[in-house]
């Protein structure tokens, strides 16, 4: 807020440069606030005519802290990996000397740079404003076509026409299941009632996914505008934004956005004189993965334990407090204003036959360019990982990519030409999900990954359905046993049988999909399970209990570094003489391998 006000105050004398620091959660975590504070000092000292501002996440998380420099003509230079120490040179050479510092540039309007390929295949609809302007300023949003879609819908379209436009766009729910958004709205519109609700599902619980967080932090008004349009279409006058408690910055920016929208008359009674009323409230989640399921989420808004209910009745008929309710996720709403402004046909022109538009993915794991990307549907997994994501870290071998979090599965490298659309991804056994994409290399054990997700779903099961509550526990025990080298013949078959039973006898999506990570890893990496069970070996050298550490006498120079770091003091040997590990005492922590500079420790 303050920075935006400062910008406007100084605009009487047009600044030579506008410098913008990326302050999304990633940017802050990487030290964004420190860079901002140091930058303020430097600018003050130099007495230059430079305006400062902040923005949300532009998606290049691997280059945080990011700093944009705009010249008078609006040309953009982006710097990556900025630290307070780098600022004096930046100020001196670029802001005072008008020569961009080439060494640190990651993006520039007038030259090709290696990071350009990060953007080349992206199509930004949802993320179009993220990292472009100040998310804490409603004026900035309105200067970029903000709330014009709402004006268009309220003043020139009937609710039916709005729904038709969304139907024509082919937009499907971005929360995971992919139900057509327009049809969902139509159902809620058709439910006759004097009170209806719209809800935004911002309970992004998948470990490894941060799309919704970035959108809420980087462009809160866009999500709110989508909700307003949905409310007009279905005939609702009250809405809830349900946001994870773990996202304090998103909550803070939404609160501010609601206050500002009220001041501008975009929320409240008789919006823009059209007779349309809408109130919006924020509800902070309290930490329960199952609340991402719509009926559980509504129970949570009602102040109850977040346990799912049997459907039908669907929320469109009987939702929050028994009233017709439309519930979509953050990314779905963030597409709406663009569709209304540009038309459903423009959106439907992107993508494949059954999956239209673009999709946001959070790229993480062993990938060179981890961050947030938005790509058109129809692109392949390979293109995302190698062309957008820059390939695997450290030049290692691509093994699999996990899509859809705990409800999804692992797509092996052999299927990297899979096309991104709801149906193709489902065919592999994974799901599109909300958009988490965790890339794994040859050091990741697939049995351990399956165990990791089961551990998660088992803890998050609400306990209502017996198979989900007890079945996931039994599966976890089997997987635990296998990763500890205590697996027995028949374990794989038992896992498959339990998986099948849990899928068919669980009420909600959590249970129905919980076995997916196990099923896909068995399907594509059965040999790894067998190696654990039969040979008691972990081919990825990841499962601790199955490893042995040995010092190769010929390579050891006796520097004692390993002995000093060993927490269980199990490495013995004289200085400048080969050392030996006492296998009985070794706790297999791997500290010695990390410390050894001579590659003298063999792990097998």
């Amino acid at each position, binding site marked *: 807020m303050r920075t935006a006000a400062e910008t406007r105050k100084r605009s009487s004398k047009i600044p030579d440069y506008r410098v913008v620091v990326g302050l999304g959660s*990633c940017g802050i975590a990487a030290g964004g606030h420190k860079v901002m504070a140091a930058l303020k000092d430097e600018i003050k000292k130099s007495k230059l005519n430079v305006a400062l501002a902040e923005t949300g996440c532009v998606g290049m998380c691997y280059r945080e802290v990011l700093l944009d420099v705009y010249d008078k003509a609006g040309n953009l230079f982006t710097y990556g990996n900025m630290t307070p120490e780098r600022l004096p040179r930046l100020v001196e050479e670029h802001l005072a000397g008008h020569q961009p510092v080439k060494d640190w540039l990651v993006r520039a309007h007038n030259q090709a740079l290696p990071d350009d390929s990060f953007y080349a295949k992206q199509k930004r609809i949802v993320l179009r404003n993220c990292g472009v302007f100040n998310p804490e300023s409603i004026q900035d949003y309105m200067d970029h076509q903000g709330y014009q879609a709402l004006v268009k819908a309220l003043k020139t379209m009937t609710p039916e026409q709005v729904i038709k436009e969304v139907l024509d766009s082919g937009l499907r729910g971005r929360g995971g299941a992919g139900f057509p958004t327009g049809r969902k709205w139509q159902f809620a519109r058709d439910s006759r009632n004097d009170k209806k609700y719209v809800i935004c599902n911002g309970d992004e619980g998948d*470990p490894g996914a941060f799309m919704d967080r970035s959108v809420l932090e980087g462009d809160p008004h866009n999500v709110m505008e989508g909700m307003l349009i949905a409310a007009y279409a279905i005939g609702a006058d009250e809405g809830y934004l349900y946001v994870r408690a*773990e996202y304090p910055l998103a909550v803070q920016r939404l609160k501010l956005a609601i206050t500002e929208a009220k001041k501008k008359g975009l929320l409240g009674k008789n919006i823009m004189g059209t007779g349309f009323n809408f109130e919006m409230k924020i509800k902070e989640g309290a930490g329960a993965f199952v609340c991402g399921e719509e009926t559980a989420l509504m129970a949570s808004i009602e*102040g109850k334990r*977040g346990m799912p209910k049997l459907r039908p009745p669907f929320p469109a008929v009987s939702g929050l407090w028994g009233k017709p309710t439309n519930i979509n996720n953050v990314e779905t709403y963030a597409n709406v204003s663009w569709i209304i402004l540009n038309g459903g046909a423009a959106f439907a022109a992107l993508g494949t036959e059954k999956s239209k538009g673009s999709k946001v993915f959070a*790229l993480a*794991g062993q990938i060179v360019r981890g961050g947030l990307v938005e790509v058109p549907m129809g692109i392949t997994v390979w293109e995302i990982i190698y062309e957008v994501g820059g390939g695997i870290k450290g030049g290692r071998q691509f093994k699999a990519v996990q899509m859809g979090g705990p409800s999804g599965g692992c797509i092996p490298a052999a299927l990297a030409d899979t096309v991104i659309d709801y149906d193709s991804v489902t065919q592999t056994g994974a799901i599109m999900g909300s958009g988490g994409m965790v890339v794994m290399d040859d050091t990741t054990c697939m049995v351990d990954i399956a165990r990791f997700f089961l551990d998660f779903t088992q803890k998050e099961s*609400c306990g209502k359905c017996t198979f989900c509550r007890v079945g996931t526990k039994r599966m976890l025990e089997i997987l635990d046993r296998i990763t500890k080298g205590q697996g027995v013949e028949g374990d794989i078959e038992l896992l498959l049988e339990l998986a099948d039973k849990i899928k068919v006898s669980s009420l909600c999506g959590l249970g129905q999909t919980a076995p997916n990570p196990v099923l896909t890893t068995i399907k594509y990496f059965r040999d790894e399970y067998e190696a654990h069970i039969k040979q008691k070996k972990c081919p990825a050298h990841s499962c601790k209990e199955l490893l042995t550490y040995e010092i190769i006498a010929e390579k050891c120079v006796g520097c004692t570094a390993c002995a000093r770091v060993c927490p269980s003091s199990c490495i013995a040997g004289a200085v400048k003489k080969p050392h030996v590990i006492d296998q009985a005492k070794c706790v297999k*922590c791997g500290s010695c391998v*990390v410390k050894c500079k001579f590659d003298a420790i063999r792990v097998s």
Partner: protein
Amino acid sequence: MKKAKPAPKAVRGAADPAVKKVVARHAGNKGALITVLQEVQAELGYLSGQTIEQISRAMDLPASQVYGVATFYTQFRLKPVGKHLMRVCHGTACHVSGAGKISQALEDELKVGDGETTEDGKFTLETVACLGCCSLAPVMMIDSETYGRLTPDSARKAAKDF
């Protein structure tokens, strides 16, 4: 099960001022229980059995319902926490980047297990599902400060220096 002894009348009547204030702020709001618990916890640090009873009386809800909600969601604590909260992320990206070793290093350094508080009451160590800073994995937070791209050594150092 042994029946808990009811608290003396005088104590039962006096709700903590924080509880009174928060409940009054949300009077008349439908479904406010979770918000009330969040705000009371923010004031008092955790939800003791006594606090839960006080909330139940102030909101005219059965104590079992308040307790049921407080135990369902991971955010709510029924035990006091240390001065600083240390949360180690065990999301997928952090897991494949070695979050297990980070937790192990911190457990060794602070001599506590997961969810426990150090003897001097300085730190409570916790593992959490995902902090959403996946590209900086492995990550941990001490209070609101985030530490990214950790190694077991840098995690130990962060705990020592804090």
